[in-house]
């Protein structure tokens, strides 16, 4: 276990005074794809934030509240994932008038996400699903090895969700993704973590699990 990418040993996680995990033991290796399951409030978002804090520079971040800039276009919201790769002047120029190379690059990514005809529409004029695909687009455009996602495809239909999840996983070495869709977790991920009231109650290879095993996580 020496080359673990993320590691917690008896860690206390929470926000301010509120403790979510009293003592968490967990390690995640480079190259693993991990699905994070559990009812709302079980600590998924807290765990993701803690993972990000360990390796900020390696992580592409796709948070739950999407946190897009609603008045800017799909293009700009995706491009924002790559702000750190470009110089400030280039970024300022792109805000006013995107160059051909960036249009082509972001445009190709948007095409994969089915957003081609919305590329220069602002996010506040999109449907929930379109906005969510834009948020995923930003994470992909960040071009970092680790994907940390919080329900990145929850607003998409089953078919599209599966295709985009597979695409996103293929684009990253390592991924930890929180979700509610148990079938998707079993179909796409190597390892499944189950959380319940701030405790890790399930940690197993996806191949060894059935949907019924996962149902237990959601029983009161």
């Amino acid at each position, binding site marked *: 276990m020496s080359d673990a990418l993320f590691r917690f040993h008896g860690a206390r996680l929470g926000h301010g005074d509120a403790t979510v995990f009293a003592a968490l033991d967990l390690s995640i290796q480079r190259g693993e794809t991990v699905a994070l399951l559990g009812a709302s409030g079980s600590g998924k978002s807290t765990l993701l934030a803690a993972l990000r804090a360990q390796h900020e520079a390696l992580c592409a971040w796709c948070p739950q*509240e999407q946190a897009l*800039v609603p008045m*800017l276009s799909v293009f700009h919201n995706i491009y924002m994932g790559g702000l750190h790769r470009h110089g400030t002047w280039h970024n300022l120029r792109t805000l006013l008038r995107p160059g051909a190379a960036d249009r082509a690059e972001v445009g190709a990514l948007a095409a994969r996400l089915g957003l*081609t005809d919305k590329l*220069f529409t602002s996010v*506040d004029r999109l449907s929930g699903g379109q906005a969510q695909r834009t948020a995923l687009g930003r994470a992909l455009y960040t071009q970092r090895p680790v994907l940390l996602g919080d329900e990145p495809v929850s607003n998409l239909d089953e078919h599209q969700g599966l295709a985009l999840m597979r695409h996103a996983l293929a684009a990253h070495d390592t991924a930890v993704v929180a979700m509610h869709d148990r079938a998707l977790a079993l179909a796409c991920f190597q390892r499944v973590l189950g959380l319940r009231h701030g405790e890790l109650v399930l940690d197993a290879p996806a191949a060894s699990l059935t949907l019924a095993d996962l149902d237990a996580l959601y029983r009161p």
Partner: protein
Amino acid sequence: MNERPATTAAGWRRASGWLLLAGLVAFACADLAVTRTAPGAELLRVAQGFLAPRLLGEHGLGAGELGRALANTLAFAFQGVAFGAAAGFLLALFWHRRAVRAAAASVRAVHELFWGLLLMQVAGLSPLTGVLAIALPYAGIFAKVFGEMLEEADPAPVASLPRARQRLSTFFYARLPLIAADARAYTAYRLECALRASAILGFIGLPTLGFHLETAFREGHYSQGAGLLYLLFALILTQRLWLRARLVPVYLLAALLWAPPLGQGDWATLVRFVTQDLVPAPLARDQGWAALGDWGWMLWREQVGPGLWNTLVLGMAALLLTALLALLLFPLRSPLFGNRLTRWLGHGLLVVLRTTPEFFLAFFLLIILGPSMLPGILALALHTGAIIGHLTGRFSEGLRLRADSARGINRYAYEVLPRLSPTFLALLLYRWEIIMRETAVLGILGIHTLGFYIDSSVAEFRFDRTLVLILATVCLNLAVDAFSRRLRARLRLAREGRLC
């Protein structure tokens, strides 16, 4: 690829682009000369004065005189706000009537100093002039603000009452309580403005702090001037400490006893002023309609036209510089940028700039730079830019950025500016009307905006011209107000204006 942007930001960008263009044209037309040969030397003397302020002594301002000026400043401000708020509240009850809205808009379109110049002709340099010069425009402002508060208040409490014809009871039980807290806070803010206005009325001769301030600076006694300015700052910045709800009746009574709002003139003076002095000269002398036409054309060509043009040029240039300054200044006090030290310094800078009346800033810059439009543009932009920067920065406290958001200039351009744009534009467009109003009045200092011609006509006792020129400022203000409101509605900007 779809190339036509359908973004919300694009609409704001287009409007900003037009305002930018108008501002640039105005800058190209404006007279920006620095006419003083060695502004550095004068600035040095001013700086020395500000570092060694002095309130009493040397140049003949005794403690008694200073005390009287201070008491007058407070008394005019308190009475002005009290009468203005009372009248404004009554008008607000009839806010749904078009006539009331028009009347309120007209009285507030005339600046306190112009009201002062007019009232002085009837009531002399008396407390009545000082009080009414504040109360009249403030009544219009209060009517609008209270009226809009009542309009926007939650209608549910009224709807849930049993249907009865007790309109007055309904009002006091189900409508007034909803706006009471906001109305009180706004009135306190207005008192701060009234203190500035009251001081500035000294520039046209009323015995307030501004009278001595102007004398001191004009005669080069900068230590004395700085002391008086610091006193005004202290008065405004400590308002929160001494303005207590329970003490307000005491203050008001003291204000009424110290400076009873009585004038020097009598009824006959007023009648003569209205029926003779304000009537166009050709009509008063029975020279017929053709002479009136010539008179009107002469007035337009020589005074109203140039005055309007200069006011517009100076105002639009100031609006552009205000916008740029506000965009530069707001990060200074926003928790999203900088560190504790830069925020502390930024706060201080913004407080000083927005506490100093723009009229005084212009007066001060005129002394340093010499007469041209430049001091006026700078003064308006510094004061208004600080106000908008402060309010925009405060609004940015409510923004929640995601954990991986960019930093520095990238954060400013991509995360913060787009989200702040509607607030910023609403504030800027709302302030536009106030900038135009202040631009006109800067003419009293010698910049050739409408106020210059108004001041000259008063000095020549040609009040018929004064009236026409003041009506021209009213028309300009109403036009700008209407245009700004349409633009705000078109861009679907929120009503942020009441903040300033």
